[in-house]
């Protein structure tokens, strides 16, 4: 589904180069739920931006569904992004002027889905994610957890191939975080959504099937959950973080 090959990303000018990503390579299979962890400045967000086509790698290639997006022309990227990628942002990034229904429907409108189909498709996915009763409300009228569910619905309503989540629980309380992560697990397990989540929260990462650790722009380690329960997996994540030298605060 996703192939990241020797990706490098530099910032700055000739005399002052910062290497944000340094030869990162990994693959994600269809239907996988993968988390990328690392302390602040490790390159997580840069990697996510490169995968989401918002940023361009300095070297290496990124293939999504076999398409090399790093070689894609700028004018085709927007189309690729709207057809293949779903986004869940830390700050929800919902449009304040639209209702929850319209925020979800916006993705379909951007993708030129016939107007007559929009409402029914939105309602279908909203029911699935448990937000059917708040569709007529505006984002400021609902809780943070509900807003993030709306973002989840927006990320999957068009049938996007890959959902990219950037610290999705960052702005939520612990109860809402737990509900959201369970929902994402369900999206992955029951509906086959492929999810790539960037987080520095070990609890959030423990909901994933696989965790990649980034440090100073390089892949440092990789953990697979396998048959382990979430609590055991969480312990393993904390061990890796401790080994990486991260403080407990880094793991929240």
């Amino acid at each position: 589904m996703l192939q990241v090959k020797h990706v490098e990303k530099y910032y700055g000018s000739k005399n002052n180069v910062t290497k944000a990503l340094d030869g990162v390579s990994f693959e994600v299979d269809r239907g996988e739920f993968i988390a990328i962890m690392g302390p602040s400045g490790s390159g997580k967000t840069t990697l996510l931006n490169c995968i989401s086509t918002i940023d361009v790698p300095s070297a290496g290639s990124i293939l999504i569904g076999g398409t090399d997006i790093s070689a894609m022309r700028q004018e085709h990227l927007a189309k690729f992004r709207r057809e293949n990628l779903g986004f869940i942002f830390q700050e929800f990034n919902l449009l304040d002027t639209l209702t929850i229904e319209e925020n979800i429907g916006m993705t379909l409108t951007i993708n030129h889905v016939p107007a007559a189909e929009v409402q029914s498709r939105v309602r279908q996915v909203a029911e699935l994610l448990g937000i059917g009763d708040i569709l007529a409300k505006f984002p400021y009228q609902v809780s943070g957890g509900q807003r993030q569910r709306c973002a989840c619905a927006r990320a999957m309503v068009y049938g996007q191939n890959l959902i990219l989540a950037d610290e999705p629980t960052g702005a939520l309380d612990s109860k809402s975080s737990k509900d959201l992560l369970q929902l994402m697990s369900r999206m992955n397990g029951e509906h086959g959504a492929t999810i790539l989540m960037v987080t520095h929260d070990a609890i959030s990462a423990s909901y994933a099937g696989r965790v990649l650790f980034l440090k100073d722009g390089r892949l440092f380690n990789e953990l697979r959950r396998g048959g382990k329960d979430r609590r055991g997996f969480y312990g393993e994540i904390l061990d890796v973080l401790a080994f990486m030298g991260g403080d407990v605060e880094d793991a929240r």
Partner: protein
Amino acid sequence: MLAKLSMRNAKRQAGDYLVYFITIVLAAALIFAFNALVVSSEIRTLSTYMDSLTLIVGMASVVVVIILGWLVYYTQRFMLAKRSRELATYILLGVENKRVAGMFLTENLVVGAAALLLGLIGGNFIYQALRAVVFSLFDLPYIFSFGFYPAAVGLTAAYFAAIFLISLLLCRRRIRKLSIRALIEMDRINEGEVLDKRKPRKKIFTASIVCGITGTALLLTRNLGLGILGSFLIILFCYGFFISFSSGVPSFFDKRPVQKYKGGTLLIFRSLSTKLASIGITMGTIALLFTAALLTEGAALLFQNQFNQNETLMTGFDLYIAAPAGNADMTAYEEYIDENMEITSQLRYTTYNAKDDTVTQYVKSRTDYWTYFDYDQLMGYSDYAALRAMLGYEPAAMSENEYIVHCMDHLKPALDGYNDKLVAGGIELTQGGMYNEVLTQFTWDGNGRGFILVVPDRAVDGQTASLDIWAMMTAQPVDGKVYQGIQDLRDERSNLSGDPDIYDTLMSKAGLKEEYASLSALVVFPLFYLALVLIMAAATILTIQFLSDAGKYRRQFQILYDLGMDKREIRGTLNRQFAIFYGMPVLPPMLICIVFMFALGQAFDAGIIISAAHLWGIIGFSLFLFFAIYLLYVAAASHSMKKAVLPD
């Protein structure tokens, strides 16, 4: 330290509110230019009519001060709300409310003073432009001469002080009373939706449309009482329409999801209704100001047209004196004219009554025409030929058994088909041609009323004389003072006779020029002055409102870009939002203005508006002038908005 901070903020404010700043600079320039016109002795001595300029410009200035006062107060309140968090921080750090209020006052005074100073400098150029126009109206050569007008500077400064001080004192009172919490929350407070989202809005929307149509219809009645009622209804329409429109649109689309999700409709209608919900009253006021601006400007152009037409159509002679036949006594005039003027050509002649008013009735049945003479008017061919020669027109040939119709241009279509035989002095005549040059046939007391029938000299023998006329061409245009002397003689003759019917008609080409040039300066200039300020004030508020949302729009389009909306679509959506936002408050005023101008156009004497195309031309020009200014604001806002909003 606080003063330094204050200065820095004043500078920064000038950048944030550039459009507002430019507008008040222009306003200061306009105020100065018009005041300089009033106090300038060279302008005031152009004509005795110009004595009224002080009063008229003074009245216009009062309205201008009120409009600008509103603009400044609105913008300062807006700035206060936008900067409330910053001000709250000062208070939080221990600065007293009084000092913060003082700082806000100082900043705005600095901005106002800078605008005034720049305006006074720029005003000199506008004054020169106005001076050039006035001189050209009076057919005088324009020579650049720079004058210093302390009275105009003083008046402009006084007006500006009134505008800024009242507004600032209101704002200062506000700040001094505010708590930190209130300041922090201030930027989140909108106008508040005036109507809630239930049934009343529909009723108000419908009622506002009815008010708009009824109000416009009442304006057309040309009745003062009904006109005032009509104006009031139009005010209701402007507010009702925008208050209810902003609440009504979402409910319209909620019931029509298919239309809602079509193309970029969703984004556009939501952004617009959200914005209008919070500034419905402001939009109503803006629409009202635009309506006033368009009406004022339209009226100015129509009056200008009337003055131009009157001046052209009234007479072609340098001096024209007419008296009812039998009462004419030109002796006093002769002596005075001999002493004061050099005549190059002249003719004394008589016009006659025909045996009936057949042609008059024919014209009346076919066009808008008011009758003055009970009989068709006749002129002998030799007089006609001499008059044509005096005026430099081509000779008009006519055989012994023919007659010529000489009419106003606008009566030509009505008379075109008239080929009936005419019997005058017992001779039967056939139509031998039609001419329509200016022959002093426009008014009731000229060579006929709108038209005159030219017949062979033998056909007027024995006919009843109508007017005794003395037409003259002079070496120099008739001087204003000399013309006044002739008018005094006329008045004296009338007073002495004790008969109100003895009141000779006097017309002088130069006199008419002076009269209508003065009227243009007195009526048209102040109307344009008002229109300009109205457009600038309303467009500035609109632009400030739109640009203040740049941050929100930027965030919105960044999200959409991240979600995969391509830049072309984003640009298109922004353009459409932009067009609707700037188009909405202009559309109703445009419709009202077109209807009003048509009505006013009909109210003028026939011949002033030559044809529907002529009227449309004036309306078109009026709209062109309006949009020439408005689009400058639109372009400035569009440029800033695109720069600030579109994703990189």
